[in-house]
């Protein structure tokens, strides 16, 4: 039986990829209420973090939905909703 993914699992995935993309961002400075730009990411960093997170979570989120996000928590929520929806249909 597959264990259901939680929102915290998704947050952990996103945090790991943000910290990998931003060499000098310490875990203590990772604040998901901030935007990725506020954490120091540029456009390529953001695209790489989202791409790696989607690949690890095995989900696809349309770019049109991603462009509306204003902070990391909203990204985590969106990825989590899609992960749950994907697991229901598979």
């Amino acid at each position, binding site marked *: 039986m597959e264990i259901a993914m939680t929102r915290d699992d998704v947050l952990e995935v996103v945090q790991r990829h943000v910290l990998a993309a931003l060499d*000098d*961002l310490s875990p203590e*400075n990772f*604040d998901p209420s*901030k*935007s990725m730009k*506020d*954490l*120091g990411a*540029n*456009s*390529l960093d953001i*695209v*790489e973090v*989202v*791409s*790696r997170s*989607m*690949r690890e979570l095995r989900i*696809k989120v349309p*770019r049109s939905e991603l*462009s509306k996000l204003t902070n990391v928590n909203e990204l985590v929520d969106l990825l989590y909703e899609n992960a749950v929806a994907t697991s229901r249909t598979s």
Partner: protein
Amino acid sequence: VNIWLVDLDSVDLRLDVVAPTELSQAVSYRRKVDHDHFLARRTLVRTLLGQVLDRDPASLCFTNGTNGKPHLLDAAGDFSVSSSAAHALVAYTPQGCVGVDIERRRDHLDIAAILTEYFGEPAVSDIDQFEPNDEFLRRWVQHEALAKATGAGLPFPCSERIQNPSLTSHILDLGVPYIGAIATDTILGNVAVQRW
């Protein structure tokens, strides 16, 4: 078109020219280095545009277009700013539109994930054509410069000829470790980047 490459760590912050809204925006950055670089960019943009427009830097007003592209509110011309790590690229044109982008070269870039997950599902040969990273970054900065020049998102990879026949993009020689590009509808002669 004026193009400047600037080491943000060498910019003397001018809090007297930065607007109160920009000062409060700086506070949102989590790391001090990002806070300082943001204020350096605002100082830089106001100082450089003030020079070419012969205006007091503090008097310049900006507004954002529909997709967030900043515009001069009460002065002629178009400008664009991009930064990566500690360097910023700034361009100004008195007529037409301009966009710039700069990226620091990086050892580890997951090109396959970016192309497959974010931009769709290209054929393996499409991914191969972007190796090594430099080729991907060259295409990326040209894409970003074009997107900034138009003020609209563009599909990636894109052909500027297809997207907008009046726009052209050029790779800029910024020296290691940076790759940069400019896109504009203004005819460029010799593209010279000024170090500031």
